[in-house]
């Protein structure tokens, strides 16, 4: 994995929901190296305010460009939202460890997203869907039928947001054949509840074997996902956020406690942002 440091042209930057922006950046170099789960550090504008780069996940990866999905929070994301197509931004990436793909190409994979946690999940769904089309399903191949057919791997998105407007990009998931279930905290769309409610139900109702669970969202959500999945013997991958400065493992600023008796920290930017649940204490 080779990271790049370069000024890249913005080809798209549009509002897709109140305070939510979708940005497309042309960079064959970054796109060519990038994997779902990784992120970029962006200098949102020249000058001292804000001082540091901002980490944003890869929302989508094509052959020549990347897409970012971001919510306007403060100074950095605000100035990002004012960037126009044709302007250039300084990017460092791709950074961090990607999501490992499910080991098995059958059964079902659960993607749990809370709020802006949806951002890296689309890239992951695209990658899993693409792979399951290329690889023949294990059972069919064993039966000696020879021809390629759609693998029975099923992707489920369990997606919770504050309200209806904050549920974004659902069509993109559906186009991939992902089965989408949504909840909102205020009940303005679908049922009222949290993504973790959907996870509990899916564990009960899911017909086949669950090959892996992936989660990205606020820390409390990740904690409860980890609690629910405890002792289930299903691989669980969590994508974490922490304040970052360098984004590449040098400053030791973005620590998360590693599991174990002795106090020891891992770097979210370099050892993560994707961790297997057994590696860390949330």
């Amino acid at each position, binding site marked *: 994995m080779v990271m790049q*440091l370069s000024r890249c042209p913005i080809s798209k930057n549009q509002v897709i929901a109140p305070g939510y922006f979708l940005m497309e950046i042309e960079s064959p170099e970054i796109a060519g190296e990038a994997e779902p789960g990784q992120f970029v550090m962006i200098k949102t504008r020249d000058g001292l305010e804000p001082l*540091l780069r901002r980490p944003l996940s890869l929302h989508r990866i094509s052959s020549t460009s990347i897409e970012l999905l971001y919510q306007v929070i403060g100074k950095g994301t605000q100035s990002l939202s004012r960037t126009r197509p044709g302007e250039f931004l300084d990017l460092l990436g791709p950074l961090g460890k990607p999501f490992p793909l499910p080991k098995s190409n059958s059964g079902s994979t659960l993607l749990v997203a809370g709020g802006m946690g949806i951002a890296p999940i689309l890239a992951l769904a695209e990658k899993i869907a693409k792979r399951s089309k290329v690889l023949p399903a294990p059972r069919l191949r064993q039966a000696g039928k020879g021809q390629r057919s759609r693998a029975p791997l099923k992707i489920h998105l369990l997606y919770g947001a504050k309200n209806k407007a904050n549920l974004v990009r659902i069509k993109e998931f559906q186009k991939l054949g992902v089965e989408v279930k949504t909840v909102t905290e205020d009940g303005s769309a679908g049922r009222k509840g949290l993504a973790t409610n959907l996870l509990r139900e899916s564990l009960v109702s899911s017909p086949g074997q669950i090959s892996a669970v992936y989660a990205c969202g606020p820390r409390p959500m990740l904690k409860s996902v980890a609690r629910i999945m405890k002792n289930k013997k299903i691989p669980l991958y969590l994508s974490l956020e*922490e304040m970052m400065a*360098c984004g590449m493992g*040098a400053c*030791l*600023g973005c*620590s998360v406690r590693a599991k174990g008796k002795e106090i*020891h920290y891992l770097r979210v930017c*370099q050892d993560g942002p994707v961790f297997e649940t057994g590696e860390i204490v949330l």
Partner: protein
Amino acid sequence: MNLKTKIGKLVLQNPILVASGCFGYGEEYAPLLDLSRLGGVVTKGISLKPRPGNSPPRLAETPAGLLNSIGLENVGVDRFVEDKLPFLRKQKACVIVNIFGESLGEYRKLAEIFNDIDGIAGLEINISCPNVERGGLEFGLKPDSTRKVLETVRGKTSLPILAKLSPNVTDIVEIARAAMTGGADGLTLINTLKGMAIDVNTRRPKLARVIGGLSGPAIRPVAVRMVYEVARKLSVPIIGAGGIDSTEAALEFFIAGARAVQIGTGLLIDPRLPLTIGRELAGYLDNQGLKDIESLVGNMLIEKSKRRKE
């Protein structure tokens, strides 16, 4: 253009170094810049035993600044020598090891260990870290303890040693003098300023440890002033640091009296900044009609009458 500079007996091919704690052990940044082209690589602070560091959050951004409370997380001297140093050597980096102890005995032991190891250009003695319970800043706040740490290290090594001083003192000149008396070959000025920030919505401190060290452009005027004061009162070799984010910022330090500079926070934002500054520095000297970096150091134009009044 001759960019060579000397800090006592430490000779550097150019005066742009990377600061301790902002460059890890060099591995992370190596894909982005050639370490052999840096004036020097100052390592993350190394202690006798590995240290886990402080609990997160360890970072907070402030106006033109960065607060950190890393707490000197490091792999310890054994693993540094075994796993990290060979890489730096292979890259042909000019390695300056930043060391930190909780007691005089620990500083002594570290000096002894590094004295016997090849491929190290010098030691930087950290007596100024605000983010640890014991040692560090405690030593650097008083002239007496400053001198003792330097004497202890000096007694055990023939390597060039730099004392890294804290700005969190009333009289920097007094501390600088003590460090030189103790046997330092030069001084690194400055480490971070103590600071804190509060999230008003949650009413919680932004750092888990509440108080941390402030770095970045916000502290630059303080750093330039300290370099100037020390350079003027004592003629000692100084490496300046604090908020360097451009060639212009680096130039201020040279003109104030520094013979070299270190880049910390600026590197976290632009990993290639040291090389950019190195390039632009040569151009600046040319424009000013100066033949080398030596002729710029301390070369601030000021009327004699004003200087006397300070």
